[in-house]
């Protein structure tokens, strides 16, 4: 455990262990990079697989993933879908959380339970019924257009219970004094929400935004069945198309996987603390 500063010998031992573990964790990533740098058919026809890229090394897989693999379009679709979902989820969650935390209204308890119970109905469970519904209203069809596809990809995720309760928890942490002071200052409910509650709970809301981003961007199952034409593939779906579909473009597929992970990796590096707080919100509180 994090105890006394270890002696030099012990420290070296730990560095060796930690480095070894790092290598193991990163090894699959290295393999992906190595395969992205190898010609697709060289990978396919290699008699014994190698941990190194097959020569001649091809550096252009990352750009070809865009030019030949058409990765740009799915990235845009994913970006737009993620943006809509995150913005909507944050807005709806802040509103609902505020109502649950500070307002009194009839049937409050029942409404809260109804919201919480949706956690028992993840999209995987409701998948086939939801797809059916969206088919009937024409959002999911082989001839779906841009608007229909974006609608199908985002509508079920415009609100989400986890965020509501996470932010409500944050609101409940606001000291009573602060509330009373705000009331004395003549803040309306919405004024209090905007000027006090949201700014004070910014860390919580920030964590939620990151989590929402992560889950919206990384989704697979719902887009897989709500998008019926390649034209509106998200990045994650595009990976499937790359997959092994096009063998002399194997390297592009692996490059695409790296590219797909980059936005989240950047977020992770920049907002490490907030992200970790969000991820651990349920575990350690």
């Amino acid at each position, binding site marked *: 455990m994090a105890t006394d500063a270890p002696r030099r010998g012990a420290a070296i031992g730990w560095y060796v262990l930690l480095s070894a573990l790092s290598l193991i964790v990163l090894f699959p990533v290295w393999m992906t990079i190595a395969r992205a740098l190898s010609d697709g058919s060289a990978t*396919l026809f290699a008699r014994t697989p190698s941990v190194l890229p097959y020569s001649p090394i091809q550096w252009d897989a990352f750009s070809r993933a865009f030019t030949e693999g058409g990765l740009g379009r799915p990235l845009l679709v994913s970006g737009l879908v993620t943006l809509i979902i995150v913005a909507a989820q944050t807005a709806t969650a802040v509103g609902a959380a505020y109502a649950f935390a500070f307002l009194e209204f009839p049937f409050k308890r029942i409404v809260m339970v109804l919201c919480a119970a949706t956690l028992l109905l993840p999209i995987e469970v409701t998948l086939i019924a939801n797809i059916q519904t969206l*088919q009937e209203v024409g959002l999911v069809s082989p001839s779906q257009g841009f608007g229909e596809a974006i609608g199908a990809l985002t509508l079920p995720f415009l609100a989400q219970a986890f965020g509501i309760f996470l932010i409500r928890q944050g609101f409940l942490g606001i000291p009573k004094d602060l509330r009373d002071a705000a009331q004395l200052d003549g803040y309306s409910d919405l004024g209090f929400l905007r000027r006090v509650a949201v700014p004070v709970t910014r860390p919580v809301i920030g964590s939620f935004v990151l989590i929402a981003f992560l889950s919206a961007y990384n989704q697979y199952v719902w887009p897989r069945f709500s998008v019926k034409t390649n034209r509106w593939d998200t990045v994650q779906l595009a990976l499937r198309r790359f997959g092994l579909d096009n063998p002399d473009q194997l390297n592009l597929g692996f490059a695409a996987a790296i590219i797909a992970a980059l936005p989240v990796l950047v977020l992770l590096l920049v907002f490490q603390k907030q992200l970790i707080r969000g991820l651990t919100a349920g575990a350690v509180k």
Partner: protein
Amino acid sequence: MARPTKILSAALLATALLAASCGGGDDTDGTASGNGDSNLPTCPVDAFKKASGRTEVVMWEGSYVGRNNAALHAIADAYNLSQNKVTVRVEKQGATYDELRRNYEQAMNGKNLPAIVAGEDTWTQFMVDSGTALPASQCIKVDKDPRAKMADLLPSVAAAYTVDGVQWPGSFAVSTPVLYYNRTAFANAGLDPDKPPATLAEVKAAAEKLKAAKLGTSGPLVMKMDPWFIEHAVTGVGETVVNNDNGRDGKRATATTFDNPAVKETFAFLADMKKAGLLNAVSNSKLIDHYLAVATQGSDMLFETSAAITLIAGVVAGNLDLKKELGDTVDVNIPAGFKVPFEVGVGVYPGLKAPGKGQIGGSAWYITTTGSDAVQSAAWDFLKYFNQVDNQVKWTREGSYLPVRDKAQQELEADPSWAGSLIGRWITTAYNGMKTLNADFPGPLIGPYDVFREDVAQAMESVTLQGTDPAAALKTAGSSITAALKKYNDTNF
């Protein structure tokens, strides 16, 4: 939070259960209707000519790639230019027949079906039962246009797609399995490259020779565990796979007939070959491994569809840009410019007793009933155009689909540059194999053919990949398929 949530969600579930079970829904009286032709839809021939402007015909397909696809689009474009009343638009609605079928059935809900769908050979019974198809024979009957009747349509093709005297699809993309083999390896093993094995027993003998010569080290015969190959062998000797005369005696099939000798013999072939190390069995879910096995000379004989002829001929000649050929949906992973270092031959598909026979494979084009009269008649007009000999010649020459009209094959053979080419010779071999098909016994009609295929593939895989006893594997598949048949017949209300 815990308790109330628990109780409430339980209550919710109960309410939902109650509501759903009482809730009406448009229940039907449940009388099953047969497929007698008294109430077949009528064909509104030429209705589009009275419509104002151009009528749009959307065609869905899920199986044409590379040159096949290009040929189809070229013919559709030429049709669009040839007149000013109809526009045909071909859409790829899936990379596989399964995906196409899913989209088709889902479109049935929303009632937004295409005007034409290119369904797999296995769809026939489903299309008959679905109530979505306008039978071509209804149009042929009333249309005075001489192009409507194809007197030289191969009887085996017509028979395969005719149910109770009604021919359902109007156009075809026909293929048949063939044997691709490595002529160089045959010669090296002391086999005659000009005499490919004609029966499964001869395949085994050839495999033994190849193995003795240390050729085809992964197993001299590579075979995808595709039930199509089983069905061909069984149909070829006049045996059934389902009851009620393969579902063709006016009643739908209700059970499998896997205890007949032909089915057993075919499965025994798989088991024996595997046991002797002569079979390189590839899972049916794989798309490319069997081609690869031949390319890398791990195997020297391959059962595959004749539709791959153009492709393989191109690889052999080393002059195909495969990437362009295959588009982004199919997957043969031989790099561009790759030339196989051996000679390839094509033989008629070996049967249990004799080569050839079997049943019609590929796809067939159906006109749907949900469009307006103008759309239905326009779709029929396009099929008539497509069926003309010159377009059929194009369809074969540019793709690998086999001619379905004798006149088309004659015209092709009259052109020495085609008939002498590798593709021409191979297509002719496959065509001759197909001509041996028995029009009086055109293969099974199965409603849930998709389930049938899936279960038989499982049986094949468990025999060849897991070493399961063929009898046990067949029993499992048989009971599952029989249940599916029952369910299918029950749900066709």
